């Protein structure tokens, strides 16, 4: 049997005003990012409810990344500042429960930073791939 390389499933919540465009920028600059990254467009990084992250893990994600505008550049003035506080607390809580901290991440990527988008996603994928499958926040019912 051929050994298939483990490919982690990554969910990337991308802000409409920056990172989502950054992904386009990466594309037009012919910079690649892994196909395992499934991008979900959100109006602002602070739209990401902590429940979205847990649900992504439930539904089979091995890693979840939130990409928003650089602090100070929020389209809605201050949304990403709130994202920063919420996610700091949530990630710390997940860690407290013994769930690998490296499976979750927040990055600030502007619309002009196609290269950063590509680099971030490649790095995150590699980190999660090294961790292996998400076992601690899995929902067995959702596994095939």
């Amino acid at each position: 049997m051929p050994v298939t390389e483990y490919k982690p499933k990554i969910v990337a919540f991308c802000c409409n005003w920056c990172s989502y465009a950054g992904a386009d920028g990466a594309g037009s600059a012919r910079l690649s990012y892994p196909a395992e990254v499934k991008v979900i467009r959100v109006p602002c990084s602070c739209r990401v409810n902590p429940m979205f992250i847990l649900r992504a893990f439930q539904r089979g994600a091995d890693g979840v990344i939130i990409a928003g505008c650089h602090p100070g550049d929020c389209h809605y003035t201050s949304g990403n500042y709130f994202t920063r506080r919420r996610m700091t607390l949530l990630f710390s809580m997940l860690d407290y429960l013994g769930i690998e901290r490296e499976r979750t991440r927040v990055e600030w990527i502007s619309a002009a930073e196609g290269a950063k988008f590509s680099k971030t996603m490649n790095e995150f994928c590699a980190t999660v791939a090294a961790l292996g499958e998400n076992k601690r926040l899995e929902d067995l019912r959702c596994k095939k």
Partner: protein
Amino acid sequence: MKKLSLAKLYDFFAAIAAKEALYLPVNNEVGKAEYKRWSEGVELSHQLNTLRSAKDFFFPQTENLMEFKMEGKKIDIIDTREACDDFVIFGVRACDAASFDILDRVYLVDPVDSYYKNRREHGTVITHACGKPAETCFCGTFGIDAADPKGDITVWDVEDGYVFRANTEKGEKLMAATADLFEDTDDKAVKAEQDKVREILAKMPLADLTTEGVGAGLTKEVFDRPEWASLSESCLGCGTCTFVCPTCQCYDIRDFDTGHGIQRFRCWDSCMYSDFTKMSAGQPRPTQLERFRQRFMHKLVYFPDNNDGVFGCVGCGRCLSRCPISMNIVKVMKTLAKGGNK
């Protein structure tokens, strides 16, 4: 009657566990008793009763009923029922043993609940007579004798061991399979133990609790009692009483979308919840007063109405010790009895 010496109790467990799964009360990480599967080294808890009731064995908190797979317009229904292996529960108290009869009246009457029946048929219940009842015990109110529990086999603690009595064919079979561990005995030691426990029970604060003011045929009178308002006033609407109760048998059926099919499962539900029996027309019991009343009407009036006067409570006392605000069936019964002739 057969006697098992103190030293041979764990040999008995080992003999059963060699053939089928054996569950018994074990102290958990916070020192409370809960049913766990026995294996070498696992110790029987000496507490009066388990925190959760024994109904889980026959009516688990959640259980898959079936699955659906959908392709285009085609739906496949997959039966997920599995053959249940034989199992033995040791250490069931008189109250919990009586609760099985109540659950049977719900699940084994037409239409028979095949999931429940399957497990009921494969389970052997070994009851353990109470030696040290608590102040929250009131099984006697419902005619249950803590010193002589039902079940397939009954076990009593006596001074230098345990006395076993098989009550059913299932029990006989189990005893026969482990016959070499036992010796014959008479019922003297058991009688002495029973007298001692009955004497203690008579001294308990709830020994004089009666079912006055409730029971079959009293729907209108009890339903309209004004005391429901103050009784239910501080109820939080949580499901603690329901979920620790050995006789609460209501469930909800829900679908879970797994992403590659639908799992239809049932799970315990509580009439104390705001979304219990919610229908397209809305919630039939809009405030906690109605929900609270429903729980006690069901146990104390509706159930006896439909079941030859048998009450839907076995007096295990779990709700008395677990309710966050200490409102419970005893306080309800006493209040209803007080103004009974109003």
